C-alpha cells in the first residue's frame, strides 16, 4: 500500500469534510446541553429535516442558495416551537425527561417524513457552479465539498463573534456558568433558552442542508449521525463548544484515516477513540468535571 503524503493527503481532506458535518451537529448539541442541560436526541431528525426542507425549497424557488438559507431557518423555527411548547414544561425535572421527549420526537419526525416525502428518499444536486471537481494539485476534489468546509468555518466564526462580542452572547455564556445569578440580575432566561435551542436546531438543519447534495435526503439519514455526533460531544466534553469543534474534526480524521488502512473498522474506531479518550479524561478533552451530576 502507498503511504506517501500524496496518498494520505486526499484522505485527510475528505475526513475534514466529514468532520465539518460532525462539528455543526455537535456544536448545536453542545450549545443546548451546556446551557439547558437538555440532551437533544431529536438532533438527527432535525438534520434529516434540514435535508428535506432544502429539497422542498429548491423545488419551489429553483434557487439552491435561497433553499440553503431557508431550510435551516425553518428547522430553527421548528426548534423554537419545540422548546416553547414541549421542552419548557420539563425544566427542573430530571435530565432523562427531555431526553425521552426528544427521542420520541425524533421517531415521530422520521415517520412523518416517510409519510410526507415517501420511504424511498429524494436526491438533490449541488448547484451548477459547484458541480465539478477542483484540481488541488494532489487530487481532484469536489467543489461542493470545499464549499461545505467554507460555510462551516464561516458559521463557526459568526457564532464565535456572536457569543463573545454581543450582549446576548454574554448572557448565554453567563447563563451556562451560573443561571441563578443571571436570573438574579433580572434577565429572562426563558427567552435565552428559547433562542439557544432555536440556534442549535438551525445548526442541525444547516448540517442536513449541506449534506443533502452529497448524500441525498432520506428519513433515516439522521439515525447514525446523531449517535456519532453524541460521540463527538462526549469526546470533546459535554457543553464545550471548543471541544465540539476539535473533536468533530478529529473524528472526521479518525474515520478518514481508518478507512484508508482498514475500511471495515472505520465505524468501530469512532467508539474505540471515545473509549480511549474517556479513560484518560473522563469528562472529555475540554469538559468540566461534574456537568452531568
Amino acid at each position: 500500500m502507498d503511504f506517501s503524503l500524496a496518498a494520505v493527503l486526499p484522505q485527510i481532506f475528505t475526513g475534514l469534510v466529514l468532520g465539518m458535518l460532525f462539528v455543526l451537529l455537535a456544536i448545536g448539541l453542545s450549545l443546548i446541553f451546556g446551557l439547558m442541560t437538555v440532551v437533544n436526541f431529536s438532533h438527527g431528525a432535525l438534520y434529516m429535516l434540514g435535508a428535506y426542507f432544502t429539497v422542498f425549497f429548491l423545488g419551489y424557488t429553483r434557487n439552491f442558495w435561497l433553499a440553503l438559507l431557508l431550510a435551516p431557518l425553518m428547522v430553527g423555527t421548528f426548534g423554537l416551537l419545540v422548546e416553547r411548547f414541549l421542552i419548557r414544561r420539563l425544566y427542573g425535572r430530571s435530565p432523562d425527561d427531555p431526553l425521552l421527549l426528544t427521542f420520541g420526537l425524533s421517531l415521530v419526525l422520521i415517520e412523518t417524513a416517510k409519510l410526507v416525502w415517501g420511504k424511498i428518499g429524494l436526491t438533490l444536486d449541488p448547484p451548477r457552479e459547484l458541480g465539478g471537481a477542483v484540481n488541488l494539485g494532489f487530487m481532484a476534489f469536489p467543489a461542493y465539498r470545499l464549499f461545505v468546509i467554507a460555510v462551516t468555518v464561516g458559521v463557526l466564526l459568526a457564532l464565535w463573534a456572536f457569543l463573545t462580542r454581543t450582549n446576548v452572547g454574554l448572557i448565554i455564556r453567563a447563563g451556562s456558568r451560573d443561571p441563578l445569578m443571571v436570573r438574579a440580575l433580572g434577565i429572562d432566561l426563558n427567552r435565552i433558552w428559547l433562542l439557544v435551542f432555536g440556534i442549535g436546531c438551525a445548526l442541525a438543519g444547516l448540517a442536513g442542508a449541506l449534506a443533502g447534495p452529497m448524500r441525498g435526503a432520506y428519513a433515516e439519514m439522521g439515525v447514525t449521525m446523531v449517535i456519532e455526533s453524541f460521540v463527538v460531544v462526549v469526546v470533546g466534553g459535554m457543553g464545550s463548544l471548543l471541544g465540539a469543534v476539535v473533536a468533530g474534526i478529529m473524528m472526521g480524521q479518525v474515520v478518514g484515516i481508518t478507512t484508508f488502512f482498514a475500511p471495515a473498522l472505520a465505524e468501530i474506531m469512532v467508539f474505540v477513540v471515545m473509549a480511549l479518550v474517556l479513560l484518560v479524561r473522563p469528562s472529555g478533552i475540554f469538559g468540566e468535571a461534574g456537568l452531568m451530576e
Partner: protein
Amino acid sequence: MASITRRKFLAATGGTAGAIATQGFFPAVLRAQAEPLRIGCPLPLTGPFAALAADMQRGAQLAQDELNAKGGVMGRKVEVLFRDDELKPAVGAQRTKELIENQKCQFIVGGLAAHVQMAINEQTKKAKVLFISTSQSDEISAKPDTSPITFHEALNPTITSRVMGTWVAQNLGKKWWIIYADYAWGKQNNAVLQDTLQKNGGTLLGATPYPLGSAEFSAHLPKIQAAKPDVLMSMTPGADNIAFLKQVRSFGMDKTMKIAQPLLWISYLKEGGPELYSDIYGSINWYWELQDTIPSAKKFVEASMKKFNIPPGDYGAYSYSGVLEVARGVELAKSTDSEAVANALRKSPVYDHFKGKQWWRACDNKSMQDMWIVKGRGPGKTKGDWGLMDMVAKVTADEKYDRTCAEKGFV
C-alpha cells in the same frame, strides 16, 4: 412470565374452540371456499431498500389480482399478506413466524436482502412451509442452508458476478477495484468477481467493504482514484447506489474509469436520473422493454401500467413470478401441502411468467433464467419516463453459470 403463559393459554383455548365451532357448523367444502389461500410476503418496506420492496409489493399484488380474476387457485381466492422486515434478520424471522402461525399463511414468497432471507428460510424450514426466495443469495439454494421446500427465483451472486465479471473483463478492462456492501450478498459477489477476474487474466488493485446503508463514500474514494483502475466494480445496493454514484462523479472518477455493477435497479435509475446513471454498466434479470420481444413480458408490463401506471422493475418481476409459481404448484399438486407442491414443481419445472422460459434445477430448486447486460442511457437518449437502459447483450440461461450440484453440497 405468568402473563405470557396465561396469554398463550387463552390463545390456544380460543383457537381450539374456534376450530371446533367451524368444523362443527360448516361442511368441509364450504369452509375451503371461504378460506383464501394465504401467501406471506416479508419485504424491507422501510430503509434503504424501500424502493425495491415497493416494486416487489406491486409485483406480488399483480400476481394476486391476476389469479383472483381467473377465479383463484383451486376455487380459493389468493391473498398476499405483506410485512415489513425492516432489513433486519431478527425482524424478518419474527414477521415470518407471525405470518405462518397467526395469519395461517401456507406459503412464503419474498425476502430481498440476502441475510434477512436466510432468517426467513430458517422459519419456513422449521414450520415446513414452502418458501420461494426472491433475494440474491448463493447459500439459499446450497447445503446446508437450503431444503427440499426452499425455492430460489432470483439470480444469485455466482451467476451475476460470473457473467458480469467475464463480460466486463473482456469488454471494459482488466484492472479492477471492487467496492462492496459488507454483508452476505456483497461478500459473495466480491469473492466470485475476484475469482472471475483472475480466470480472465486481470489484476485486482483493491477491494473495499463498506457498511450497508451508509451514505458516505468519500473516505474510500481518494485511494481508489489514486490506484487508477480501468473498472470500478460496485456492489452498493439500494439507496446507497445513488449516494455512491453521486460521490464518484463529484470526484471526477467517472472520467478516468468505467463503472460497472452486477446489478442495476430501475427504481434507483428513475430516482437518480439519466445523468447520474449515464454509461453505468450492470447485469439484470429483466427490463420492461423486453415487452417488445417477449409475450409474457408484454402481458406483465401492460397489467402493471394499467394498475399502477408504472412499469414493473426487475425485483417486482421476481415476486410476481414467485406468487404465480406457488399457484401453479398448488394446481399441479392439487394440494396445498408444501411438500406435495414442491414435488409437483420439480416434476414439471419449466415455466414462463414474465421473461420467457425458466426452469427449476432439480437438485437445488434454483431457477435458471436468461439475463441481460445493460447500460444507463444518458440524458437525451431516454425513451419516455422509464426507458432508462440500453440492452447491451443477452446471456441465455445455462446451468454452467451457477455452481454445480456437487459444489453446492448435493451428491
